[in-house]
């Protein structure tokens, strides 16, 4: 082959290979993007020490109340009942609250599931800070077992003044035997 042709062909091939890699790079990039912008309703976590005690403190805003509504959903085909223990709550920004959901396994076997979460409006996701959540790890329910599942969270006091109503939704999916990527 003409060396000049070979050179151009190799360069073009390298672009193609690099772009294949770029496709995969979009996965972590998207993760970072969601983390930074709250895109996709991503929430934040409160910094803790190794014993799980809160190390990051927020000033409580006594003059504001933010309404938070809760939804819960078990995705087909997971045979669970899953619903919020409270319909809504009014939160003082900065103060830590504990809420719960109730999950029941209607299946005939033990089932492990993983919950995802979502905040609307999406832009508010980053202002919901969790200290503890059943969504941090996979949950296993024995056949017929019912359990309360807790989430401890606070609303960041720096939340923009025009956001006064939020909804926090959890969906349980039957877990695959994989680590999160």
């Amino acid at each position, binding site marked *: 082959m003409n060396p000049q042709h070979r050179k151009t062909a190799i360069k*073009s091939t390298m672009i193609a290979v690099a772009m294949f890699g*770029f496709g995969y790079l979009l996965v972590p990039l998207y993760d970072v993007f969601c983390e930074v912008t709250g895109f996709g309703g991503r929430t934040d976590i409160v910094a803790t020490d190794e014993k799980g005690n809160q190390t990051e403190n927020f000033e409580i805003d006594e003059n504001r109340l933010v309404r938070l509504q809760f939804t819960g959903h078990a995705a087909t085909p997971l045979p669970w009942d899953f619903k919020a223990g409270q319909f809504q709550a009014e939160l003082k920004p900065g103060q830590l609250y504990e809420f719960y959901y109730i999950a029941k396994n209607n299946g005939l076997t033990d089932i492990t599931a993983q919950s995802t979460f979502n905040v609307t409006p999406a832009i508010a996701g980053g202002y919901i800070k969790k200290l503890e959540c059943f969504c941090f790890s996979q949950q296993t329910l024995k056949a017929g077992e019912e359990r309360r599942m807790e989430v401890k969270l606070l609303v960041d006091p720096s939340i923009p003044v025009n956001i006064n109503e939020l909804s926090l939704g959890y969906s349980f999916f039957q877990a695959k035997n994989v680590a999160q990527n």
Partner: protein
Amino acid sequence: MAHTPTGLKRWLMSTNHKDIGTLYLIFSLSMLFLGGAFALVIRAELFEPGLQYVDPHFFNQMTTVHALVMVFGAVMPGFVGFANWMIPLQVGAPDMALPRLNNFSFWILPFAFTLLISSFFVPGGAPAAGWTLYAPLTIQGGMSVDMAIVAIHIMGVSSIMGAINVIVTVLNMRAPGMTLMKMPLFVWTWLITAFLLIAVMPVFAGAVTMLLTDRHFGTAFFDPAGGGDPVLYQHIFWFFGHPEVYIMILPAFGIISAIIPTFARKPLFGYSSMVFATAAIAFLSFIVWAHHMFTVGMPLQGELFFMYSTMLIAVPTGVKIFNWLSTMWRGSMTFETPMLYSIAVVFLFTIGGLSGIMLAITPVDFQYHDTYFVVAHFHYVLFSGAVMAMMGGAYYWLPKWTGHMYNETLGKWHFWLTTIFFNITFFPQHFLGLAGMPRRYADYPIQFTEFNQWSSVGAFGLGISQLLFVYIIVQTVRGGEKATDEVWENPEGLEWTVPSPAPFHTFEEQPTVK
């Protein structure tokens, strides 16, 4: 160099750009009929409300495979066929730079499509999730999804190799004196298309590979159960998908930029602005993808960014439209079939472009999204843009390819039947979409009946008219009035300096361009 292979070997083992071009064009035309047949199943079912001929699942297979076949089987290989035939002739090269690669990139295509089409016969039938193959639906589908994924990999490899061939040929094999800014616009648009191809086909290959590993190898890129996000698939897909739609239209711009000056008997108006406009469209295509996802959920800033960047594309596209109009302005125009097609492309593509601007407006897109308005929009840019430009190009260069003039009367009949039936098929779909008829459903409420009947009648007319196209091509190949070397009146370009039909080997000695 008088060696000319014959028989089956000539085609199977061909390294000749003209033969491979012919293979690509025949393949593309066959796929046009196959994809068209699927479309007619859709239109037959939608002739009346209720379910008549097929069940909804099969209907969804039809919409999915129709799109995959048309995009990857008809339009893209069609343009590669034109590139193979015309780029060496237009830059004064004896062949494509990498002839064996050329052979390989064509001959893997029939395997890819055999695989895709045979998925109709596996349990559950062909993929039915739409050509976008959105996760999580495609994570759940049957084995046909795997067959489609592998077929897409093969098609992707084929088009990447084709693109590399174009890049190497154009960059290294131009005749002395042909600087980049002297290249015919068809070569320019294809060079830019080739760069788009090597940039985004691998991304799509990556996306479907992730689907495949999510389905079988325990990863969870798009599966929420493992921490993945289905919306991520849509982002990756459209990062490929939007440049892909320009891959399917830029070479069409190149073809009509060759045709219009010939029949207006004036040089192309604003050559360098055409080149820059093409490059600008290609660049912008990378930063507009999320306009396909306005309703999926995005921060306001995101929606605004993608709205404005999308609208910005109208500027370079407008430059092109006005350049074509200015080329025709006060020209001594004649209206042979290729010119009729080119004028129709300018006119009808603009309709598709304008409905595209309507769709780019985020707040109204919430109304139009996934309705027949979108279907009408992309058929105006893809059929009356890409496909009709290829038909015009086929009439324009057919005398050079075959050595015979086509039958002008029949050509004009083919043009008018195609254009009229196309508009009967797709114009009413704008109204259906605005009235709220969603796409990809086998049934509809009765108030949509009349427009759907117009559309179905038009579709059958459009399909049947294409038999005339085949007849004209076969007739021209077999005989007819001898074409001169120039074919048309003082056309511009090196391809008109070689005899008609173009001999098996051309430009063994490089021509010089002044």
